[in-house]
Protein backbone atom coordinates (compact mmCIF):
# COMPACT_ATOMS: atom_id res chain seq x y z
CA UNK A 1 0.00 0.00 0.00
CA UNK A 2 1.45 3.37 -0.91
CA UNK A 3 1.78 6.15 1.57
CA UNK A 4 -0.82 8.24 -0.19
CA UNK A 5 -3.41 5.54 0.05
CA UNK A 6 -2.52 5.02 3.68
CA UNK A 7 -3.19 8.62 4.56
CA UNK A 8 -6.31 8.56 2.47
CA UNK A 9 -7.47 5.54 4.36
CA UNK A 10 -6.67 7.16 7.67
CA UNK A 11 -8.54 10.27 6.68
CA UNK A 12 -11.47 8.19 5.65
CA UNK A 13 -11.41 6.39 8.96
CA UNK A 14 -11.36 9.66 10.88
CA UNK A 15 -14.27 10.85 8.79
CA UNK A 16 -16.09 7.60 9.45
CA UNK A 17 -15.55 8.00 13.16
CA UNK A 18 -16.95 11.50 13.16
CA UNK A 19 -19.96 10.32 11.20
CA UNK A 20 -20.36 7.41 13.55
CA UNK A 21 -20.30 9.64 16.59
CA UNK A 22 -22.84 11.90 15.02
CA UNK A 23 -25.20 9.07 14.21
CA UNK A 24 -24.80 7.03 17.40
CA UNK A 25 -25.76 9.04 20.42
CA UNK A 26 -25.18 6.25 22.93
CA UNK A 27 -21.65 5.85 21.65
CA UNK A 28 -21.08 9.55 22.05
CA UNK A 29 -22.44 9.52 25.58
CA UNK A 30 -20.39 6.47 26.50
CA UNK A 31 -17.25 8.02 25.05
CA UNK A 32 -17.94 11.29 26.83
CA UNK A 33 -18.38 9.51 30.15
CA UNK A 34 -15.18 7.56 29.70
CA UNK A 35 -13.29 10.71 28.76
CA UNK A 36 -14.87 12.32 31.81
CA UNK A 37 -13.54 9.55 34.02
CA UNK A 38 -10.08 9.95 32.55
CA UNK A 39 -10.27 13.70 33.13
CA UNK A 40 -11.39 12.99 36.65
CA UNK A 41 -8.34 10.83 37.21
CA UNK A 42 -6.10 13.46 35.72
CA UNK A 43 -7.64 16.27 37.71
CA UNK A 44 -7.08 14.60 41.08
CA UNK A 45 -3.46 15.74 41.60
CA UNK A 46 -4.35 19.15 40.18
CA UNK A 47 -7.17 19.66 42.61
CA UNK A 48 -5.00 18.38 45.39
CA UNK A 49 -2.39 20.97 44.54
CA UNK A 50 -4.99 23.72 44.44
CA UNK A 51 -6.57 22.71 47.74
CA UNK A 52 -3.21 22.18 49.35
CA UNK A 53 -4.03 18.83 50.87
CA UNK A 54 -3.85 15.23 49.82
CA UNK A 55 -6.46 12.46 49.77
CA UNK A 56 -5.13 10.85 52.93
CA UNK A 57 -4.61 13.98 54.99
CA UNK A 58 -6.87 14.17 57.99
CA UNK A 59 -8.49 17.37 59.15
CA UNK A 60 -10.57 16.40 62.13
CA UNK A 61 -10.58 19.94 63.49
CA UNK A 62 -11.98 21.47 60.34
CA UNK A 63 -14.39 18.76 59.32
CA UNK A 64 -15.60 16.79 62.34
CA UNK A 65 -17.97 18.07 64.94
CA UNK A 66 -17.49 17.42 68.62
CA UNK A 67 -19.19 14.05 68.36
CA UNK A 68 -16.83 13.04 65.58
CA UNK A 69 -19.48 13.33 62.88
CA UNK A 70 -18.19 14.57 59.54
CA UNK A 71 -19.68 17.60 57.82
CA UNK A 72 -21.08 17.61 54.30
CA UNK A 73 -19.38 20.81 53.38
CA UNK A 74 -16.51 22.90 54.64
CA UNK A 75 -14.38 25.50 52.89
CA UNK A 76 -11.96 23.48 50.78
CA UNK A 77 -14.03 20.34 51.24
CA UNK A 78 -16.66 20.58 48.54
CA UNK A 79 -18.24 17.22 49.30
CA UNK A 80 -17.38 17.31 52.96
CA UNK A 81 -15.21 14.84 54.78
CA UNK A 82 -15.31 11.23 55.88
CA UNK A 83 -15.19 10.02 59.44
CA UNK A 84 -11.43 10.52 59.58
CA UNK A 85 -11.69 14.10 58.36
CA UNK A 86 -10.44 13.35 54.87
CA UNK A 87 -11.64 15.16 51.78
CA UNK A 88 -14.38 13.04 50.18
CA UNK A 89 -14.18 14.76 46.81
CA UNK A 90 -10.46 14.34 46.60
CA UNK A 91 -10.61 10.74 47.71
CA UNK A 92 -13.29 10.03 45.16
CA UNK A 93 -11.17 11.54 42.42
CA UNK A 94 -8.15 9.58 43.55
CA UNK A 95 -10.30 6.46 43.72
CA UNK A 96 -10.45 6.52 39.94
CA UNK A 97 -6.71 5.90 39.91
CA UNK A 98 -7.17 2.58 41.63
CA UNK A 99 -10.12 1.63 39.48
CA UNK A 100 -8.22 2.32 36.31
CA UNK A 101 -4.90 1.05 37.60
CA UNK A 102 -6.53 -2.23 38.42
CA UNK A 103 -9.18 -2.40 35.71
CA UNK A 104 -7.07 -1.61 32.69
CA UNK A 105 -4.03 -3.81 33.33
CA UNK A 106 -6.22 -6.64 34.56
CA UNK A 107 -8.28 -6.47 31.40
CA UNK A 108 -5.30 -6.18 29.08
CA UNK A 109 -3.52 -9.03 30.81
CA UNK A 110 -6.52 -11.31 30.79
CA UNK A 111 -7.11 -10.46 27.14
CA UNK A 112 -3.54 -11.34 26.26
CA UNK A 113 -3.49 -14.52 28.32
CA UNK A 114 -6.97 -15.63 27.35
CA UNK A 115 -6.41 -14.92 23.67
CA UNK A 116 -3.11 -16.78 23.64
CA UNK A 117 -4.57 -19.80 25.36
CA UNK A 118 -7.68 -19.79 23.22
CA UNK A 119 -5.59 -19.40 20.10
CA UNK A 120 -3.29 -22.27 20.94
CA UNK A 121 -6.11 -24.52 22.11
CA UNK A 122 -8.28 -23.84 19.12
CA UNK A 123 -5.51 -24.06 16.56
CA UNK A 124 -3.60 -27.03 17.91
CA UNK A 125 -6.72 -29.00 18.74
CA UNK A 126 -6.43 -32.55 20.00
CA UNK A 127 -4.68 -33.13 23.25
CA UNK A 128 -3.43 -29.58 23.67
CA UNK A 129 -6.97 -28.35 23.29
CA UNK A 130 -8.27 -30.90 25.78
CA UNK A 131 -5.71 -29.85 28.37
CA UNK A 132 -6.22 -26.13 27.90
CA UNK A 133 -9.99 -26.45 27.85
CA UNK A 134 -9.82 -28.41 31.07
CA UNK A 135 -7.69 -25.65 32.53
CA UNK A 136 -10.36 -23.16 31.56
CA UNK A 137 -13.08 -25.24 33.16
CA UNK A 138 -11.06 -25.56 36.34
CA UNK A 139 -10.51 -21.82 36.51
CA UNK A 140 -14.21 -21.26 35.97
CA UNK A 141 -15.14 -23.76 38.65
CA UNK A 142 -13.51 -21.73 41.42
CA UNK A 143 -15.84 -19.39 43.25
CA UNK A 144 -14.32 -15.96 42.66
CA UNK A 145 -14.80 -14.13 45.94
CA UNK A 146 -14.02 -17.07 48.15
CA UNK A 147 -10.79 -17.84 46.35
CA UNK A 148 -9.88 -14.17 46.37
CA UNK A 149 -10.32 -14.09 50.13
CA UNK A 150 -7.87 -16.96 50.46
CA UNK A 151 -5.34 -15.67 47.97
CA UNK A 152 -5.10 -12.30 49.63
CA UNK A 153 -3.91 -13.84 52.89
CA UNK A 154 -0.91 -15.19 51.00
CA UNK A 155 0.36 -11.70 50.54
CA UNK A 156 1.83 -10.96 53.93
CA UNK A 157 5.47 -10.10 54.16
CA UNK A 158 7.70 -9.03 56.97
CA UNK A 159 7.11 -5.92 59.06
CA UNK A 160 3.72 -5.08 57.70
CA UNK A 161 4.96 -4.93 54.18
CA UNK A 162 3.30 -6.99 51.56
CA UNK A 163 5.19 -9.43 49.41
CA UNK A 164 3.87 -7.69 46.35
CA UNK A 165 1.94 -4.49 45.97
CA UNK A 166 -1.67 -5.22 46.96
CA UNK A 167 -2.79 -3.56 43.76
CA UNK A 168 -0.86 -6.20 41.85
CA UNK A 169 -2.49 -8.92 43.90
CA UNK A 170 -5.92 -7.58 43.06
CA UNK A 171 -4.94 -7.37 39.40
CA UNK A 172 -3.66 -10.93 39.59
CA UNK A 173 -6.81 -12.27 41.19
CA UNK A 174 -9.01 -10.56 38.65
CA UNK A 175 -6.88 -11.83 35.78
CA UNK A 176 -7.08 -15.31 37.21
CA UNK A 177 -10.82 -15.18 36.86
CA UNK A 178 -11.33 -13.16 33.72
CA UNK A 179 -8.99 -14.68 31.17
CA UNK A 180 -11.39 -17.57 30.75
CA UNK A 181 -14.02 -15.59 28.92
CA UNK A 182 -11.43 -14.56 26.35
CA UNK A 183 -10.06 -18.06 26.04
CA UNK A 184 -13.47 -19.60 25.48
CA UNK A 185 -14.61 -17.17 22.83
CA UNK A 186 -11.27 -17.08 21.05
CA UNK A 187 -10.99 -20.85 21.02
CA UNK A 188 -14.43 -21.18 19.48
CA UNK A 189 -13.63 -18.57 16.87
CA UNK A 190 -10.29 -20.12 16.01
CA UNK A 191 -11.85 -23.53 15.54
CA UNK A 192 -14.33 -21.93 13.22
CA UNK A 193 -11.74 -19.81 11.44
CA UNK A 194 -9.16 -22.49 10.91
CA UNK A 195 -11.62 -24.47 8.86
CA UNK A 196 -12.41 -21.43 6.74
CA UNK A 197 -11.25 -21.74 3.17
CA UNK A 198 -9.05 -18.66 3.34
CA UNK A 199 -6.98 -20.23 6.09
CA UNK A 200 -6.68 -23.46 4.14
CA UNK A 201 -5.85 -21.35 1.14
CA UNK A 202 -3.02 -19.68 2.99
CA UNK A 203 -1.69 -23.09 3.97
CA UNK A 204 -2.01 -24.10 0.36
CA UNK A 205 -0.04 -21.01 -0.55
CA UNK A 206 2.82 -22.39 1.46
CA UNK A 207 2.52 -20.32 4.62
CA UNK A 208 3.57 -21.88 7.92
CA UNK A 209 1.53 -22.20 11.12
CA UNK A 210 2.99 -19.09 12.70
CA UNK A 211 2.32 -17.01 9.62
CA UNK A 212 -1.21 -18.32 9.37
CA UNK A 213 -1.90 -17.60 13.03
CA UNK A 214 -0.39 -14.17 12.82
CA UNK A 215 -1.67 -12.85 9.55
CA UNK A 216 -4.80 -14.86 8.81
CA UNK A 217 -6.40 -15.71 12.14
CA UNK A 218 -5.32 -13.06 14.60
CA UNK A 219 -6.53 -10.06 12.58
CA UNK A 220 -9.94 -11.66 12.39
CA UNK A 221 -10.06 -12.12 16.14
CA UNK A 222 -8.98 -8.61 16.92
CA UNK A 223 -12.36 -6.85 16.81
CA UNK A 224 -13.97 -9.51 18.95
CA UNK A 225 -11.16 -9.41 21.47
CA UNK A 226 -11.39 -5.62 21.63
CA UNK A 227 -15.12 -5.85 22.19
CA UNK A 228 -14.71 -8.54 24.83
CA UNK A 229 -12.12 -6.42 26.57
CA UNK A 230 -14.45 -3.46 26.52
CA UNK A 231 -17.14 -5.63 28.08
CA UNK A 232 -14.74 -7.07 30.63
CA UNK A 233 -13.26 -3.76 31.74
CA UNK A 234 -16.29 -2.51 33.68
CA UNK A 235 -16.76 -5.98 35.13
CA UNK A 236 -13.20 -5.88 36.39
CA UNK A 237 -13.65 -2.41 37.83
CA UNK A 238 -16.63 -3.67 39.79
CA UNK A 239 -14.61 -6.69 40.87
CA UNK A 240 -11.93 -4.43 42.32
CA UNK A 241 -14.57 -2.40 44.13
CA UNK A 242 -16.13 -5.57 45.49
CA UNK A 243 -12.84 -6.90 46.78
CA UNK A 244 -12.08 -3.57 48.40
CA UNK A 245 -15.58 -3.48 49.81
CA UNK A 246 -14.93 -6.82 51.45
CA UNK A 247 -11.66 -5.47 52.79
CA UNK A 248 -9.33 -7.64 50.75
CA UNK A 249 -8.57 -5.28 47.92
CA UNK A 250 -6.94 -1.93 48.14
CA UNK A 251 -5.39 -1.21 51.51
CA UNK A 252 -6.25 1.77 53.60
CA UNK A 253 -5.52 4.59 53.63
CA UNK A 254 -5.36 4.46 49.83
CA UNK A 255 -8.73 5.53 48.55
CA UNK A 256 -10.70 3.03 46.51
CA UNK A 257 -14.38 3.41 45.77
CA UNK A 258 -15.03 -0.02 47.21
CA UNK A 259 -13.52 0.67 50.59
CA UNK A 260 -15.00 4.18 50.70
CA UNK A 261 -18.45 2.68 50.25
CA UNK A 262 -17.72 0.00 52.81
CA UNK A 263 -16.62 2.65 55.25
CA UNK A 264 -19.75 4.72 54.73
CA UNK A 265 -21.94 1.69 55.16
CA UNK A 266 -20.15 0.24 58.14
CA UNK A 267 -20.15 3.48 60.09
CA UNK A 268 -23.68 4.35 58.96
CA UNK A 269 -22.33 7.85 58.52
CA UNK A 270 -23.93 8.12 55.11
CA UNK A 271 -27.04 9.02 57.04
CA UNK A 272 -25.46 12.26 58.21
CA UNK A 273 -22.88 12.73 55.45
CA UNK A 274 -24.52 11.28 52.36
CA UNK A 275 -21.58 12.15 50.13
CA UNK A 276 -19.52 9.50 51.86
CA UNK A 277 -21.70 6.96 50.07
CA UNK A 278 -22.99 8.97 47.13
CA UNK A 279 -19.70 10.31 45.83
CA UNK A 280 -17.86 7.01 45.42
CA UNK A 281 -21.05 5.21 44.36
CA UNK A 282 -21.75 7.82 41.72
CA UNK A 283 -18.17 7.77 40.49
CA UNK A 284 -18.25 4.02 40.26
CA UNK A 285 -21.58 4.16 38.50
CA UNK A 286 -20.48 6.73 35.96
CA UNK A 287 -17.31 4.83 35.19
CA UNK A 288 -18.93 1.47 34.82
CA UNK A 289 -21.88 2.88 32.96
CA UNK A 290 -19.63 4.77 30.57
CA UNK A 291 -17.51 1.75 29.79
CA UNK A 292 -20.55 -0.48 29.48
CA UNK A 293 -22.19 1.88 27.07
CA UNK A 294 -19.03 2.19 25.07
CA UNK A 295 -18.61 -1.58 25.03
CA UNK A 296 -22.10 -2.29 23.75
CA UNK A 297 -21.90 0.30 21.06
CA UNK A 298 -18.45 -0.92 20.04
CA UNK A 299 -19.84 -4.41 19.93
CA UNK A 300 -22.64 -3.24 17.72
CA UNK A 301 -20.18 -1.67 15.32
CA UNK A 302 -17.24 -4.02 15.51
CA UNK A 303 -18.32 -7.49 16.45
CA UNK A 304 -19.13 -9.38 13.27
CA UNK A 305 -21.19 -11.83 15.27
CA UNK A 306 -23.55 -9.12 16.35
CA UNK A 307 -23.45 -7.16 13.15
CA UNK A 308 -24.38 -10.15 11.07
CA UNK A 309 -27.14 -10.95 13.49
CA UNK A 310 -30.02 -9.42 11.69
CA UNK A 311 -30.13 -10.43 8.10
Amino acid at each position, binding site marked *: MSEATATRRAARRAGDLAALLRSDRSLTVGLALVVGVLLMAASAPLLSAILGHGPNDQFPDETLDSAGLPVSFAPGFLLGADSSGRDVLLRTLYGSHISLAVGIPATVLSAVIGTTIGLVAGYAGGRTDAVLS*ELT*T*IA*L*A*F*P*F*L*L*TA*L*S*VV*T*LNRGAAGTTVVDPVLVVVGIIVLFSWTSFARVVRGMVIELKGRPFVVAARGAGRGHAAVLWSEILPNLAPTVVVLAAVQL*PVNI*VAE*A*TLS*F*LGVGTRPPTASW*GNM*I*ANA*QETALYQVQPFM*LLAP*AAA*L*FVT*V*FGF*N*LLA*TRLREHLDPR*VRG*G*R*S
Partner: protein
Amino acid sequence: MTRLVLGRLLRVVITLTAVVLITFLLTTVAYNDPARLIAPDNATEETLASIRATFGLDQPWWVQLWRYAVVGPPIQGVATGLLNVPPSLGYSYVSQRPVTDLILEKLPATASLALGAFVLWMLVAVVLGVLAARRPGGPLDRITSVIAYTTLSVPVFVVAVLLIFVLYFQLSLAGIHLFPSGGYVPFSESPGEWARHLILPWTALVLVQFGPFQRIVRSSVLEVTGKDYIRTATAKGLGPGRVYFDHALSGAANPILTLGGIELASLMGGAIVTEQIFGIDGIGRLAVRAASTGDAPVVIGVTLVGAVFFVLITTLVDLVTHARGGR
Protein backbone atom coordinates in the same frame (compact mmCIF):
# COMPACT_ATOMS: atom_id res chain seq x y z
CA MET B 1 -25.12 -40.25 24.25
CA THR B 2 -23.86 -42.73 26.84
CA ARG B 3 -20.32 -42.17 25.70
CA LEU B 4 -20.89 -38.45 25.86
CA VAL B 5 -22.18 -38.71 29.41
CA LEU B 6 -19.29 -40.91 30.47
CA GLY B 7 -16.76 -38.61 28.86
CA ARG B 8 -18.27 -35.64 30.60
CA LEU B 9 -18.25 -37.46 33.91
CA LEU B 10 -14.56 -38.17 33.55
CA ARG B 11 -13.88 -34.52 32.91
CA VAL B 12 -16.00 -33.60 35.91
CA VAL B 13 -13.85 -35.84 38.07
CA ILE B 14 -10.66 -34.29 36.71
CA THR B 15 -11.95 -30.79 37.27
CA LEU B 16 -13.02 -31.48 40.83
CA THR B 17 -9.77 -33.23 41.67
CA ALA B 18 -7.85 -30.22 40.43
CA VAL B 19 -10.07 -27.88 42.42
CA VAL B 20 -9.51 -29.84 45.62
CA LEU B 21 -5.79 -30.04 45.03
CA ILE B 22 -5.35 -26.36 44.30
CA THR B 23 -7.55 -25.19 47.16
CA PHE B 24 -5.85 -27.54 49.51
CA LEU B 25 -2.42 -26.24 48.64
CA LEU B 26 -3.60 -22.67 48.65
CA THR B 27 -5.14 -22.88 52.08
CA THR B 28 -2.25 -24.86 53.50
CA VAL B 29 0.18 -22.19 52.40
CA ALA B 30 -2.00 -19.17 53.03
CA TYR B 31 -3.51 -19.73 56.41
CA ASN B 32 -2.25 -19.37 59.91
CA ASP B 33 -1.23 -22.45 61.78
CA PRO B 34 -4.56 -24.22 62.32
CA ALA B 35 -3.34 -25.57 65.64
CA ARG B 36 -3.45 -22.05 67.01
CA LEU B 37 -6.95 -21.72 65.73
CA ILE B 38 -8.03 -24.78 67.62
CA ALA B 39 -6.01 -24.09 70.74
CA PRO B 40 -6.86 -21.48 73.32
CA ASP B 41 -5.11 -18.16 73.30
CA ASN B 42 -2.56 -19.14 75.91
CA ALA B 43 -1.87 -22.63 74.69
CA THR B 44 1.54 -24.00 75.36
CA GLU B 45 3.77 -25.42 72.68
CA GLU B 46 2.97 -28.90 74.02
CA THR B 47 -0.73 -28.41 73.59
CA LEU B 48 -0.14 -27.10 70.09
CA ALA B 49 2.03 -30.10 69.30
CA SER B 50 -0.56 -32.53 70.51
CA ILE B 51 -3.23 -30.79 68.46
CA ARG B 52 -1.01 -30.94 65.42
CA ALA B 53 -0.51 -34.62 65.99
CA THR B 54 -4.24 -35.22 66.36
CA PHE B 55 -5.10 -33.41 63.18
CA GLY B 56 -2.03 -34.63 61.35
CA LEU B 57 -0.87 -31.07 60.90
CA ASP B 58 2.71 -32.08 61.59
CA GLN B 59 2.75 -34.22 58.46
CA PRO B 60 4.02 -33.06 55.08
CA TRP B 61 1.35 -31.62 52.85
CA TRP B 62 0.96 -34.64 50.65
CA VAL B 63 0.27 -36.82 53.63
CA GLN B 64 -2.24 -34.26 54.81
CA LEU B 65 -3.84 -34.21 51.40
CA TRP B 66 -3.97 -37.98 51.36
CA ARG B 67 -5.59 -37.94 54.77
CA TYR B 68 -8.02 -35.28 53.72
CA ALA B 69 -9.00 -37.10 50.58
CA VAL B 70 -8.90 -40.69 51.62
CA VAL B 71 -8.87 -41.50 55.31
CA GLY B 72 -9.41 -38.20 57.00
CA PRO B 73 -8.34 -37.46 60.56
CA PRO B 74 -10.33 -39.84 62.72
CA ILE B 75 -12.34 -37.35 64.70
CA GLN B 76 -14.61 -38.76 67.36
CA GLY B 77 -14.02 -42.17 65.93
CA VAL B 78 -15.38 -41.26 62.52
CA ALA B 79 -13.19 -41.22 59.45
CA THR B 80 -13.58 -37.86 57.76
CA GLY B 81 -12.08 -38.49 54.33
CA LEU B 82 -13.50 -37.23 51.08
CA LEU B 83 -13.61 -40.68 49.54
CA ASN B 84 -15.22 -42.45 52.44
CA VAL B 85 -18.77 -43.63 52.32
CA PRO B 86 -20.57 -41.43 53.06
CA PRO B 87 -18.09 -38.88 51.79
CA SER B 88 -17.02 -36.33 54.29
CA LEU B 89 -15.48 -32.95 53.77
CA GLY B 90 -13.38 -33.07 56.89
CA TYR B 91 -13.68 -31.31 60.15
CA SER B 92 -13.90 -27.62 60.88
CA TYR B 93 -11.06 -26.36 63.05
CA VAL B 94 -13.11 -23.53 64.43
CA SER B 95 -16.54 -24.96 65.12
CA GLN B 96 -15.19 -28.48 65.63
CA ARG B 97 -17.92 -30.00 63.57
CA PRO B 98 -17.98 -32.01 60.33
CA VAL B 99 -17.85 -29.64 57.38
CA THR B 100 -20.49 -31.70 55.62
CA ASP B 101 -22.93 -30.96 58.44
CA LEU B 102 -22.07 -27.28 58.36
CA ILE B 103 -22.65 -27.03 54.64
CA LEU B 104 -25.83 -29.09 54.66
CA GLU B 105 -27.12 -26.87 57.42
CA LYS B 106 -26.49 -23.69 55.43
CA LEU B 107 -27.51 -25.07 52.07
CA PRO B 108 -31.26 -24.38 52.26
CA ALA B 109 -30.72 -20.67 52.85
CA THR B 110 -28.25 -20.30 50.00
CA ALA B 111 -30.32 -22.47 47.70
CA SER B 112 -33.44 -20.45 48.48
CA LEU B 113 -31.56 -17.25 47.80
CA ALA B 114 -29.80 -18.38 44.65
CA LEU B 115 -32.51 -20.50 43.08
CA GLY B 116 -35.27 -18.06 43.93
CA ALA B 117 -33.30 -15.19 42.49
CA PHE B 118 -32.48 -17.33 39.49
CA VAL B 119 -36.08 -18.19 38.76
CA LEU B 120 -37.26 -14.61 39.19
CA TRP B 121 -34.37 -13.38 37.18
CA MET B 122 -34.98 -15.83 34.36
CA LEU B 123 -38.64 -14.86 34.25
CA VAL B 124 -37.99 -11.15 34.24
CA ALA B 125 -35.12 -11.31 31.80
CA VAL B 126 -36.79 -13.70 29.39
CA VAL B 127 -40.13 -11.94 29.29
CA LEU B 128 -38.60 -8.49 28.99
CA GLY B 129 -35.96 -9.76 26.58
CA VAL B 130 -38.48 -11.30 24.22
CA LEU B 131 -40.81 -8.33 24.41
CA ALA B 132 -37.92 -5.96 23.73
CA ALA B 133 -36.86 -8.07 20.77
CA ARG B 134 -40.32 -7.82 19.25
CA ARG B 135 -39.86 -4.14 18.63
CA PRO B 136 -36.16 -3.38 18.61
CA GLY B 137 -35.70 0.30 19.19
CA GLY B 138 -39.27 0.57 20.46
CA PRO B 139 -40.20 2.18 23.77
CA LEU B 140 -40.02 -1.04 25.79
CA ASP B 141 -36.68 -1.91 24.28
CA ARG B 142 -35.30 1.47 25.11
CA ILE B 143 -36.66 1.55 28.65
CA THR B 144 -35.41 -1.92 29.46
CA SER B 145 -32.03 -1.17 27.96
CA VAL B 146 -31.66 1.96 30.06
CA ILE B 147 -32.69 0.03 33.18
CA ALA B 148 -30.41 -2.84 32.28
CA TYR B 149 -27.35 -0.68 31.80
CA THR B 150 -28.10 1.41 34.83
CA THR B 151 -28.52 -1.45 37.24
CA LEU B 152 -25.70 -3.37 35.64
CA SER B 153 -23.44 -0.49 36.51
CA VAL B 154 -24.28 -0.45 40.19
CA PRO B 155 -22.51 -3.09 42.27
CA VAL B 156 -24.68 -5.38 44.31
CA PHE B 157 -23.39 -4.01 47.60
CA VAL B 158 -24.59 -0.53 46.80
CA VAL B 159 -27.97 -1.78 45.64
CA ALA B 160 -28.35 -3.89 48.75
CA VAL B 161 -27.43 -1.06 51.11
CA LEU B 162 -29.86 1.27 49.39
CA LEU B 163 -32.65 -1.30 49.35
CA ILE B 164 -32.28 -1.86 53.07
CA PHE B 165 -32.02 1.82 53.79
CA VAL B 166 -35.12 2.77 51.84
CA LEU B 167 -37.40 -0.25 51.82
CA TYR B 168 -36.67 -1.50 55.28
CA PHE B 169 -35.31 1.32 57.37
CA GLN B 170 -37.21 4.33 56.12
CA LEU B 171 -40.42 2.37 55.65
CA SER B 172 -40.19 0.84 59.10
CA LEU B 173 -39.44 4.19 60.67
CA ALA B 174 -42.60 5.41 58.98
CA GLY B 175 -44.42 2.57 60.67
CA ILE B 176 -44.78 0.38 57.59
CA HIS B 177 -43.21 -2.94 58.44
CA LEU B 178 -43.28 -4.45 54.97
CA PHE B 179 -39.85 -6.01 54.80
CA PRO B 180 -37.55 -7.35 57.44
CA SER B 181 -34.00 -6.04 57.46
CA GLY B 182 -32.58 -9.44 56.79
CA GLY B 183 -32.27 -12.90 58.17
CA TYR B 184 -33.70 -16.13 56.91
CA VAL B 185 -36.73 -18.16 57.88
CA PRO B 186 -36.78 -21.75 56.65
CA PHE B 187 -39.50 -22.56 54.17
CA SER B 188 -40.66 -25.43 56.35
CA GLU B 189 -41.23 -23.02 59.21
CA SER B 190 -43.34 -20.51 57.35
CA PRO B 191 -43.46 -20.18 53.58
CA GLY B 192 -44.82 -16.66 53.87
CA GLU B 193 -42.05 -15.46 56.13
CA TRP B 194 -39.53 -17.29 54.00
CA ALA B 195 -40.57 -15.31 50.97
CA ARG B 196 -40.90 -12.05 52.92
CA HIS B 197 -37.35 -12.36 54.18
CA LEU B 198 -35.99 -13.16 50.77
CA ILE B 199 -37.75 -10.52 48.71
CA LEU B 200 -35.18 -7.78 49.23
CA PRO B 201 -32.13 -9.98 48.62
CA TRP B 202 -33.81 -11.48 45.57
CA THR B 203 -34.57 -8.02 44.32
CA ALA B 204 -30.99 -6.94 44.80
CA LEU B 205 -29.64 -9.94 42.91
CA VAL B 206 -32.20 -9.73 40.15
CA LEU B 207 -31.67 -6.01 39.73
CA VAL B 208 -27.94 -6.20 39.28
CA GLN B 209 -27.94 -9.37 37.23
CA PHE B 210 -30.94 -9.19 34.97
CA GLY B 211 -29.49 -6.49 32.73
CA PRO B 212 -26.89 -8.42 30.80
CA PHE B 213 -29.09 -11.44 30.62
CA GLN B 214 -32.05 -9.53 29.34
CA ARG B 215 -29.81 -8.07 26.65
CA ILE B 216 -28.60 -11.55 25.72
CA VAL B 217 -32.13 -12.86 25.53
CA ARG B 218 -33.09 -9.87 23.47
CA SER B 219 -30.22 -10.19 21.05
CA SER B 220 -30.53 -13.98 20.79
CA VAL B 221 -34.21 -13.68 20.07
CA LEU B 222 -33.59 -10.78 17.76
CA GLU B 223 -31.01 -12.75 15.90
CA VAL B 224 -33.49 -15.54 15.54
CA THR B 225 -36.40 -13.34 14.51
CA GLY B 226 -34.48 -12.48 11.37
CA LYS B 227 -34.27 -16.17 10.63
CA ASP B 228 -36.28 -17.72 7.88
CA TYR B 229 -37.95 -20.28 10.10
CA ILE B 230 -39.64 -17.53 12.07
CA ARG B 231 -41.15 -16.32 8.85
CA THR B 232 -42.25 -19.90 8.25
CA ALA B 233 -44.06 -19.83 11.58
CA THR B 234 -45.86 -16.64 10.57
CA ALA B 235 -46.63 -18.12 7.19
CA LYS B 236 -48.34 -21.02 8.96
CA GLY B 237 -50.76 -18.48 10.38
CA LEU B 238 -49.44 -18.47 13.95
CA GLY B 239 -50.08 -15.42 16.15
CA PRO B 240 -47.26 -13.26 17.48
CA GLY B 241 -47.36 -14.84 20.95
CA ARG B 242 -46.66 -18.28 19.59
CA VAL B 243 -44.15 -16.96 17.12
CA TYR B 244 -42.09 -15.15 19.76
CA PHE B 245 -42.50 -17.16 22.91
CA ASP B 246 -42.44 -20.55 21.23
CA HIS B 247 -40.62 -20.51 17.93
CA ALA B 248 -38.23 -17.63 18.47
CA LEU B 249 -37.49 -18.44 22.10
CA SER B 250 -36.83 -22.10 21.50
CA GLY B 251 -34.65 -21.22 18.54
CA ALA B 252 -32.68 -18.84 20.71
CA ALA B 253 -32.63 -21.15 23.71
CA ASN B 254 -29.12 -22.54 23.41
CA PRO B 255 -27.14 -19.39 24.17
CA ILE B 256 -29.74 -18.45 26.77
CA LEU B 257 -29.44 -21.81 28.48
CA THR B 258 -25.67 -21.74 28.37
CA LEU B 259 -25.40 -18.28 29.82
CA GLY B 260 -28.19 -19.00 32.29
CA GLY B 261 -26.29 -22.03 33.53
CA ILE B 262 -23.09 -20.11 34.04
CA GLU B 263 -24.96 -17.32 35.78
CA LEU B 264 -26.76 -19.73 38.07
CA ALA B 265 -23.47 -21.28 39.03
CA SER B 266 -21.92 -17.90 39.66
CA LEU B 267 -24.94 -16.76 41.64
CA MET B 268 -23.45 -18.66 44.50
CA GLY B 269 -20.43 -16.40 44.36
CA GLY B 270 -22.63 -13.35 44.03
CA ALA B 271 -24.61 -14.54 47.00
CA ILE B 272 -21.61 -14.07 49.29
CA VAL B 273 -21.99 -10.30 49.36
CA THR B 274 -25.76 -10.49 49.45
CA GLU B 275 -25.80 -12.97 52.29
CA GLN B 276 -23.35 -10.81 54.15
CA ILE B 277 -25.38 -7.64 53.88
CA PHE B 278 -28.78 -9.20 54.42
CA GLY B 279 -27.64 -11.38 57.28
CA ILE B 280 -28.71 -14.58 55.58
CA ASP B 281 -26.92 -17.40 57.21
CA GLY B 282 -25.93 -19.38 54.16
CA ILE B 283 -22.89 -20.94 52.64
CA GLY B 284 -21.54 -17.57 51.57
CA ARG B 285 -21.32 -16.28 55.12
CA LEU B 286 -19.94 -19.58 56.28
CA ALA B 287 -17.24 -19.29 53.65
CA VAL B 288 -16.33 -15.71 54.43
CA ARG B 289 -16.10 -16.47 58.10
CA ALA B 290 -13.99 -19.53 57.40
CA ALA B 291 -11.70 -17.67 55.04
CA SER B 292 -11.21 -14.86 57.51
CA THR B 293 -10.46 -17.14 60.42
CA GLY B 294 -8.38 -19.50 58.32
CA ASP B 295 -10.64 -22.49 58.77
CA ALA B 296 -9.14 -24.36 55.84
CA PRO B 297 -11.37 -27.46 55.80
CA VAL B 298 -14.48 -25.31 55.54
CA VAL B 299 -12.95 -23.19 52.78
CA ILE B 300 -11.95 -26.28 50.83
CA GLY B 301 -15.35 -27.83 51.40
CA VAL B 302 -17.27 -24.80 50.25
CA THR B 303 -15.02 -24.29 47.26
CA LEU B 304 -15.52 -27.91 46.33
CA VAL B 305 -19.27 -27.69 46.71
CA GLY B 306 -19.26 -24.54 44.58
CA ALA B 307 -17.20 -26.29 41.94
CA VAL B 308 -19.47 -29.33 41.99
CA PHE B 309 -22.42 -27.04 41.56
CA PHE B 310 -20.76 -25.24 38.67
CA VAL B 311 -19.63 -28.38 36.91
CA LEU B 312 -22.97 -30.11 37.33
CA ILE B 313 -24.87 -27.19 35.94
CA THR B 314 -22.63 -26.65 32.97
CA THR B 315 -22.58 -30.35 32.23
CA LEU B 316 -26.32 -30.45 32.47
CA VAL B 317 -26.69 -27.49 30.16
CA ASP B 318 -24.30 -29.16 27.72
CA LEU B 319 -26.25 -32.37 27.74
CA VAL B 320 -29.56 -30.56 27.40
CA THR B 321 -28.39 -28.45 24.48
CA HIS B 322 -26.91 -31.56 22.97
CA ALA B 323 -30.12 -33.50 23.43
CA ARG B 324 -32.13 -30.70 21.90
CA GLY B 325 -30.72 -31.73 18.52
CA GLY B 326 -30.72 -29.18 15.80
CA ARG B 327 -27.48 -27.34 15.09
